[in-house]
């Protein structure tokens, strides 16, 4: 049976969470930030789609265009049948061919030297615009490729045309390994963490400084405990982060299914997606604790600084620590036991990305992972505790930064 005091605290917590969520959802800036990602993805997709379509159409039109051609084939590699098919007029010497092209008697002239591995094929043509000029070189090359293909057997032709396809199978413990697919489920937490901190970090910071900047904090603290306010904000930020993720994911997923065929997107067979419960569980735990830790750090920063603007410099440093390890990403995959990877994986402020990435690629052993996780939990608890303390003392410091010395010296 909950005591009245406990009920009141829970009621106040719920009120703070609801208020924070609703007022953030009403802000235009939230929706602009949240919708920016799918809109940009959709815009890029549309540009690629229309660009490809236009290029295809243009290429087809280009191929259909007829123009007069002259050829001197000193290499004897171009099939005569092909030259006949394109109605190419043979020239005995290069000089004659060039002159014919230059004077406009023919539209283009190709000169194939005796040794094309050492000498360049020379192409001369009438200028028809930057885009269309490429048609001469394209045809000159096609004549060679087609001629080579016609002279070889199908296997060699495939090699020549770079059309060889591979089908590789690897095994883990006697079972067919799922390869890249097994990275997807645990890798989702890395993507989630990246997006949430990258797009939401600033909002976490401003949510704390806002009340100081508005001078409303004194009325709030006369009504509820600082811990209730901070925890309420923390919970609302988690809910908002998930709403933001849904806002990003729903249009992307919908877009995938709607434009799958138009954009020739690969099929995703989710039923064959490997699900490793340990990796997924570990990824989820690292993600949740890391998110809480960074939220706590940013809230502490907001509590210590008089304005969001002044907190900006420190915010940059936190972001550098968070995302800096991405520069060492190849090491996390190729040398997981190197000293730098170990340091980055155990130091709580840099650990989230190395841990999530290593967990995704499968080189994060359970015991070291649990040690890192424990360090993250400890840092989170200490950070939130310090955050509440700083918030308590810094809440009414409207115009100056609070020094750590001051916070630690004051009575709790």
């Amino acid at each position, binding site marked *: 049976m909950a005591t009245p*005091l406990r009920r009141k605290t829970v009621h106040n917590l719920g009120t703070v969470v609801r208020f924070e969520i609703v007022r953030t959802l009403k802000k235009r800036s939230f929706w602009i930030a949240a919708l920016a990602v799918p809109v940009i993805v959709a815009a890029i997709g549309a540009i690629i789609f229309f660009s490809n379509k236009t290029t295809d159409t243009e290429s087809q039109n280009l191929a259909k265009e007829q123009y007069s051609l002259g050829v001197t084939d000193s290499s004897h590699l171009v099939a005569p049948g092909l030259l006949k098919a394109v109605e190419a007029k043979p020239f005995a010497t290069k000089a004659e061919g060039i002159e014919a092209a230059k004077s406009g008697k023919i539209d283009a002239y190709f000169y194939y030297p005796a040794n094309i591995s050492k000498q360049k094929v020379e192409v001369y043509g009438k200028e028809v615009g930057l885009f269309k000029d490429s048609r001469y070189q394209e045809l000159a090359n096609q004549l060679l490729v087609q001629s080579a293909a016609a002279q070889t057997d199908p296997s060699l032709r495939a090699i020549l045309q770079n059309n060889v396809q591979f089908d590789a199978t690897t095994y883990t413990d006697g079972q067919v390994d799922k390869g890249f697919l097994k990275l997807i489920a645990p890798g989702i937490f890395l993507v989630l963490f990246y997006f949430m901190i990258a797009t939401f970090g600033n909002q976490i910071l401003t949510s704390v400084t806002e009340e100081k900047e508005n001078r409303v*904090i004194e009325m709030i*603290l006369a009504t*509820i405990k600082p811990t209730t306010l901070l925890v309420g904000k923390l919970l609302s930020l988690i809910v908002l982060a998930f709403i933001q993720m849904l806002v990003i994911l729903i249009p992307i997923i919908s877009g995938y299914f709607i434009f799958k065929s138009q954009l020739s997107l690969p099929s995703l067979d989710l039923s064959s997606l490997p699900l490793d419960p340990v990796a997924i569980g570990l990824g989820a735990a690292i993600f949740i604790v890391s998110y809480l830790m960074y939220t706590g750090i940013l809230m502490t920063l907001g509590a210590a600084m008089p304005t969001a603007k002044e907190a900006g410099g420190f915010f940059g440093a936190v972001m550098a620590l968070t995302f800096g390890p991405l520069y060492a990403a190849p090491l996390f995959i190729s040398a997981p036991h190197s000293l730098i990877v170990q340091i980055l994986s155990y130091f709580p402020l840099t650990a989230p990305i190395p841990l999530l990435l290593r967990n995704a690629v499968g080189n994060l052993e359970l015991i070291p992972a649990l040690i890192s996780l424990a360090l993250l939990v400890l840092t989170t608890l200490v950070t939130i505790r310090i955050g509440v303390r700083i918030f308590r003392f810094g809440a009414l410091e409207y115009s100056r930064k609070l020094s750590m010395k001051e916070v630690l010296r004051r009575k709790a």
Partner: protein
Amino acid sequence: MTFDKTTVIKDLSFTVRKGETFGFLGSNGSGKTTTIRALLGIYQPSDGTLLIDGKPYEVDGPVRLGYLPEERGLYKKETVVDTMTYFGRLKGMGRREAKQWSLDYLQRVELGDKADERLDKLSGGQQQKVQLGIAVMSNPDLLILDEPTKGLDPVNRRLLMDIVEEHQQKGATVIFVTHQMEEVERLCDRIMLLKDGQRRLYGTIDEVKEEFGGKVLEIVSNSPVPANDKLYTIKRKEGKVVTLEPHGDLLAIQRSLTTAGVACDRFELKRPSLDDIFVSIYGHAAKEENRA
């Protein structure tokens, strides 16, 4: 109450009786706001506590408290009604009840048409009325108002004081932190005057005037009053009105003024006003600063 190594409030103890209106006076920087913040737990005091009915006060305890801080501020980008409803919810009201109360209050203070406006679209005085509304929501048992009328025009000052008086009549205990001595004399049952973080005067207005001691001599004259340290000290000059602190016989003072050619339209011995007491304790500079 200590900040870093500086003690700003020293051994301060006072009682506010249930249902009374208590004036908490002092010049700028005397420690009034710090005392209130420490009492409410916004600042953690080095020592001491606020007891209500003998029990330590807790922010989420059973006592309904309304607080209008000196530092004005609201969620500027939220609407008036949403902000008021939020605070109403934090004070234990239901959502509908809080919203309806807010709308009724806004009508009462002539802000009915501003309910759905963002707070940053309101003037300073209008925001102050909203803040008072938040302070008096849920019929507080204890209402602490820090400079409630600062920056308000006379019409809105009257409106605001009417609202406060209504809550007094409903039984609320009111603590006024103010520099407005006229309001204190009119509204307060008892007062406390703070100087440099210490209690200077404390009691009913009559007791304080008695404790401050003696009476003052008020003279109305067109002629300048000469200094005479032996018989009196000139405490204040406001136009024709000169307030003297007498040291000697009234007859001797009168004789001295007549000799100096000062013709008095009025020569009256009276009790000092709170204003006189304030000026005496803090000096003219503080009084002028507070008026500004």
